[in-house]
């Protein structure tokens, strides 16, 4: 019986131990051309051209130096350049115009021609309608703490009739504690789930996963993503909660873009979140690409910014 008892833990350890081993699976070669560019008004078109590499191995994605880039608009060749700049990009002199559609074609030896098309969305405006309030608590030793409890309301003015997506981010600024002249910045987290009194329905809010009318974003993100699906051709207001501890004005930035960038943005978020799980527990997600015969993204955007001033209320503590 004693022998049996000794045998039990030995055998249990044997069977419970799993093993991991590197594995070689024959996969198709995935060498491909990668084309990336975001275009906006008043800035020349600048394109990054890279090589994609097989996943397994030591190689990493590299710039392709000897490609040829051609830019077209309405079927007309605007410019063609060869060779990469010293800053590793292909910079053209073509400055996009709002509403125009541009097509790029990239040729490089050993790769098929890659093409992609993008349009620059029109300019939008952002206005702060209601600012938040900040309380500054000053301790007897001069130590200051801040607490924001206010809500922010902004208006987004973009009267396009096309489907647009908006990415709202807020940058807060803080004095660096050891050196008051040094100001640090960080992205703040708008708390949309605390939002009230929406002039538009909840369905305007696109969560990072679903376009469902009754789904709310509850995971903490440092952005709000929304679309004009229900207010095309009109303006809208957006109210959200914001917690921060600074009296320095924050920057509110709203980036507008089309569905191509939206798909890229969402798929990248999904890939990052799905990579946290093993392949055993979830299906991986591919990052969206609109490049024919390659990978990458060519998309248009436009930006609008506004300053968020906080009303400061100072409280002195004994």
């Amino acid at each position, binding site marked *: 019986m004693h022998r049996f008892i000794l045998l*039990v*833990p030995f*055998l*249990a*350890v*044997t*069977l*419970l131990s*799993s*093993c*991991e*081993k*590197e*594995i*070689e*699976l024959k*996969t198709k070669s*995935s*060498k*491909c051309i*990668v084309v*990336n560019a975001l275009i906006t008004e008043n800035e020349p078109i600048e394109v*990054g051209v890279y090589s*994609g*590499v*097989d*996943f*397994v*191995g*030591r190689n*990493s*994605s590299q710039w392709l130096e000897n490609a040829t880039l051609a830019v077209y608009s309405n079927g007309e060749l605007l410019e063609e350049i060869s060779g990469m700049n010293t800053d590793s990009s292909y910079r053209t002199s073509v400055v996009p115009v709002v509403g125009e559609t541009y097509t790029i074609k990239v040729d490089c030896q050993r790769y098929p021609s890659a093409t992609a098309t993008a349009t620059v969305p029109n300019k939008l405006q952002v206005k702060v309608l209601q600012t938040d309030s900040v309380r500054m608590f000053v301790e007897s030793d001069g130590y200051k703490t801040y607490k924001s409890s206010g809500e922010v309301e902004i208006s987004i003015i973009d009267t396009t009739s096309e489907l647009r997506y908006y990415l709202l981010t807020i940058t807060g600024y803080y004095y660096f504690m050891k050196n008051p002249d040094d100001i640090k910045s960080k992205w703040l987290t708008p708390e949309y789930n605390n939002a009230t009194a929406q002039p538009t329905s909840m369905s305007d809010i696109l969560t990072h*996963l*679903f376009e*469902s009318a009754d*789904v709310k974003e*509850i*995971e903490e993100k440092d952005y709000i993503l929304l679309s004009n699906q229900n207010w095309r051709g009109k303006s809208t207001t957006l109210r959200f909660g914001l917690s921060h501890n600074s009296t320095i004005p924050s920057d509110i930035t709203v980036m507008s873009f089309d569905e191509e960038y939206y798909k*890229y943005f969402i*798929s*990248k978020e*999904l*890939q990052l*979140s*799905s990579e946290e*799980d*093993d*392949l*055993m*527990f*979830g*299906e*991986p*997600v*591919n*990052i969206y690409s609109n490049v024919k015969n390659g*990978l*990458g*993204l060519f*998309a248009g955007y436009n930006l609008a910014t506004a300053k968020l001033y906080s009303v400061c209320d100072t409280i002195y503590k004994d």
Partner: protein
Amino acid sequence: MAFKRPIVMKNIFLILLLFVCAIAQAQKHTISGVVRDAESGELLPSANVYLNSGVGTVTNNYGFFSFTTNQPSVVLNVSYVGYNIFRQTFTIKNDTTVEIKLDSDNQLEEVVVTDNSAQSRLRSPQFNMANITMKEIAQLPTLLGEHDVLKAMQTMPGVGSGADGMTGLYVRGGSPDQNLILLDGAPVYNANHLFGYLSVFNSEAIKSATLLKGGFPARYGGRLSSVLDIQMKEGNANQTHGMASIGLLSSQVAVEGPIDERTSYLVTLRRAYFDIFLWTMCKISDARDGVGKSSAGYHFTDFNAKINHRLDSKSQLFASFYAGTDKFKSRSDFPGGGYDVRDRFKLKWHNQTATLRYNRTLANNLFMNASLIYSRYKYYTKSSVKNNSFYSDYYQFSSAKGESALQDLTAKADFDWYVANNHTVKAGASISRHRFAPEQSAYESGSSKWETAVSDTSYGTKKVKSADLSAFIEDNWTIADNLKANVGVRSTLFGVENRVYASVEPRASLCYLINDNLSVKAAYSRMTQYVHLVSNSSVGLPTDQWLPSTRKIKPETSDQISVGVQYNTPEYEFTAEGFYKKMDNLIEFREGANYMSYRNWEDKLTAGKGTSYGIELMAKRSAGRTTGWVSYTLSWSNRRFAELNGGERFPSKYDRRHDLSIVAMHTFSKKFDVSANWNISSGSHVTLPIARFTDLDGAESVAYSKRNEYRMPLYHRLDVSANYHKRRRRGTATWSFGVYNLYARQNPLYIYADSEGNDWSGENRHFLKKVSALTIVPTISYTFRF
């Protein structure tokens, strides 16, 4: 339209004529009764009962049969696998009721297994069936010493296993939730112990298990791919018997016997004691690390009980109960960042089923069965962290808990009406209430200085109540001596969220006997499924969610056609079957969604279609000292979802192109028997990372293959076992030895991507890794039966 009236009248006349014929048949004498095991008094379902005239039938689930005859005397033959053939002449003057007791062929000195049921199967329109007796299951090699019904079924053609060593059944390209698993008529929603490595079914409590893969009779419904109907033993009505077994990781006891002349019982209890090993491993780890202390424990328990009471010669009452629980917990206390960090985790899941059943022979040719059935599944998980400061009484904590549950209550009644020797009609109805509470979760955090913040995330969940009403009718129809059919229809109304889904499901099976050794068969069945399991993983995790059809999630449906041929020799049974199954409204998680993301579960899902088709071959030897089978499946299983894989068709992760099992059992003597099982199959499908590239943000991202584009390496393993039985003064002792995966094949459980080195230095190396479990698992157990 008047010209149609004569046709209508003619049909009415024909129907009336049929009824008159039926009544006229009823005027003849019937011989009816039940078939029992002589030793235990257990009723024997599916026993082959036939007259010398060639008229034959099989007993129903309660051992009942009935014939009509106008002969003054009949020779009644009864056969059942593992039992001696019963043959007796009866003089028939009136309606006659008999009780037939079959002797087990174990009582013979020679240990030679005989199979009389192969001929019955040859003539039956019911095919698409996995035939393994409990006796065979008891001889098969085991994992961890546990004889497992589900694992035994995986050796049958058309039945695949999921990940290595798991009990999940993947029948004809279907997912595990498409299997209706019934324990005494009660659905079992999570049939897994030990995270899927063992099933909840204790073989000591089981009388029979039948797996249907297609050609479903109308009495079964609610799932698309298979029905596994498990009947618990009733308990020995003549003598008290029992067993006790001790194995490497679990032990069990079972007792059965008579309470009085009319009542018998069965009780089994099984408990695993992984606790001891995990505790030991934690202590070793603590001693090695020298920092903090940890402990972990896991165990499962199963409790089966059944009581069977004969009210009178015509009626019987059964009550059966099953409760199974798995509990895992871990705790660790270690210092970190000026705090004493206390980490706790608990995971618990349990199944409960209860069946109260009343049988009555209403007339010599009419049998009634009424049941009240309850089933419940629940899982609960809680994790918490508390940090106690080393320097003050300050502490901070956070905890998260989640649970999911579902509950069924069903009332049903069905009737077996032996209308004539060539018509046995089964009809019945049931009403069920279902309660689903998926994904209830809550979070709590706070500290000794702050208020506790409680976040109840049940807004992302939705409790759903639903009800269904089903009715069926089927006829076992002997059209001619060599042509039999089972035709029927099932209809269900499923009500949920003020919406009613209705289904009408026609079923038909046909068997044509070409000669005494050869038959051909064909079947069609339409199935509808109103409950769904959503799972990210290829293993059966307790956290997988059972969800009902709702307004957004439509019921799944399938249409399956199958054809087969069976050829019998005195020792061998050969079958070949082909099938084609089309499935609609299948559900999967949307891209990037998983059960852990905090969403309303309906919004995580997307619907699509599927097809599977293939051929299944089997050769089985059930007679002689050496028995066993070889089964081979060649199949395809595909899915198409508008929102997945760019709308393109992709292989299902349950697709196995080739699957071969060879099972051999040899009985040297009554003292010693051995068995082996070798399985080889195509690897599971998997989506792999295939490229790395620089994305728009300048980061290195990964491009994946199309969904399930690649296969894992070939899967194969050999299991062996040996049993040594020794007769003792008070019973029989059995030592069982076995090895699972004898040659230590490292079959992948899953594959993941990894890297080593540094991206910035360019020295980063990316690779794929496989995780294997159960590379070689020895087993030893000791069982004593009295």
